[in-house]
């Protein structure tokens, strides 16, 4: 039943995904499900394949084998814009804002890119307020500090009104205050949407996620509820051993 709910609208089911780069197995035979409306954490040490997996899901890489089932279709190998228009939108570790455009214009790109047209004033203001960016709405995004740029990037992907959000280390490099804003945005989105959250910080994962998947050297080590994972000796070993 859990597998079936995974490929229902809003859920993603990853089946036996493989990707190698010149003989190096970056992702090897990984399967798990991000059920609709749930938040799943993806953790693992550096080089464990987290970012590669995200790039596969977002269409940035084409998988060597495997399926990415979403709403009854296989997303594997589709170009990024098709995947985004289907409702699966990603962020990057790096904010990747457009420095010359203002904060409000940057956020609007999310809606414009998926062909939804210019967002109306009320919707735009609401999103900026939620992200704590109202005061800097008309500032060129390039002049903001890193943490605020990251908020802009998350607000931009929310403006694309995704069903599934793929977040790549959204909290890395942020101050405690900025973290609160990002956590609040994620929690707000969780109430209606599905999230796959990649991060190092286990505390945040435990706070936000219903379920955690652990990757190590490109393969799935284990998965389970955060409370179980945090006590799993094999996880502790790859992290601290």
């Amino acid at each position: 039943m859990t597998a079936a709910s995974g490929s229902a609208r809003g859920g993603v089911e990853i089946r036996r995904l493989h990707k190698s780069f010149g003989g190096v197995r970056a992702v090897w035979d990984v399967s798990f499900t991000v059920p609709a409306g749930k938040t799943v954490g993806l953790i693992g040490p550096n080089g464990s394949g987290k970012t590669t997996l995200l790039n596969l899901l977002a269409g940035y890489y084409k998988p060597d084998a495997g399926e990415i089932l979403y709403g009854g279709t296989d997303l594997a190998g589709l170009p990024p814009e098709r995947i985004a228009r289907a409702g699966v939108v990603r962020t990057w570790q790096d904010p990747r804002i457009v420095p010359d455009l203002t904060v409000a214009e940057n956020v609007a790109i999310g809606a414009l890119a998926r062909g939804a047209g210019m967002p109306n004033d009320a919707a735009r203001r609401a999103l900026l307020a939620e992200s704590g960016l109202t005061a800097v709405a008309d500032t060129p995004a390039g002049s903001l500090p890193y943490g605020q740029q990251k908020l802009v990037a998350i607000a931009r992907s929310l403006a694309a009104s995704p069903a599934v959000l793929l977040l790549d280390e959204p909290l890395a490099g942020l101050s405690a205050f900025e973290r609160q804003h990002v956590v609040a945005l994620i929690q707000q989105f969780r109430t209606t949407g599905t999230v796959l959250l990649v991060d190092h910080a286990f505390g945040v994962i435990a706070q936000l996620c219903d379920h955690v998947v652990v990757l190590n050297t490109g393969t799935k080590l284990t998965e389970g509820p955060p409370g179980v994972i945090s006590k799993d000796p094999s996880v502790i070993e790859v992290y601290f051993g």
Partner: protein
Amino acid sequence: MIVYLYEVVALACIFAIASMSLNLVLGRAGLFSLAHGVLLGIGAYIYGLLTTQAGVSPAVGVVAAVVGTAVLGAALAAVSVHLDEEQFAVTTLAFNLLVVIVLTNWASLTRGAYGVAQIPRLSIGDADPQLMLLLAALLLAALTFVAFRALAKSGFGQLLVASASDPDMVRALGGPVWSLRVRAFAIGSAGAGLAGALFAMQAGYIAPPLFELHLSVLILAMVILGGTRSVGGAVLGAVVLIGIPEALRFAAFNAVSAGPLRQIVFGLLIIVTIYVRLHSKTSRA
């Protein structure tokens, strides 16, 4: 004297249309095109050939020049906008050379090196045709200005800027970067086609050498001189670069040396402008 002034102002308007349209392609979409001069040439030839050989009315000729040039521009863009910047620039340069070769050699269609003569102008009743052309050029330049400014500020314009700066990011949000760029290039080509039709009317006679690479470089210089970010800057660049050689013409240069000398001035202007802009940028940072 007054007729001469009409001519210069009309020419400035025509090149302002060309440089505003390149401004969209370069300043917004980030596409470094070296084909804009020859796209203008294509517009001029479509207008010139249709009105002189096919008996089409000037108004219909203008529309055909705009649409035809946009279609050809879109075809060029379709195969080249995915390239990196320098390769795109080389491809458009190659396109420029190719079209000039075709215009020169496909004599049965284009009249080859003889060129197209006695190209008619728009006329209403028995108004002074040069004055009519001036008014038409002024009006169309103003319309182009309004249209391209609106386009630059629109969501489409913002999306172009974003996909010039980070195409992968725009694609990951669902933006069809390839088609955005092709559309931008087609719109820019339409502007070049309009400028070309007016240019053919103004000149009355067109031939392939007019549209060699130097014309693309001239329009590029106008855009760079005016600053790639503003549509008004493109107009300013056109006015300055049409004005300088006209002023030089009154200085004691004979007709033979005016051509190469003009080119040398443009070449130096491009180098100096880029140098100064980079200099002011690094000293600000």
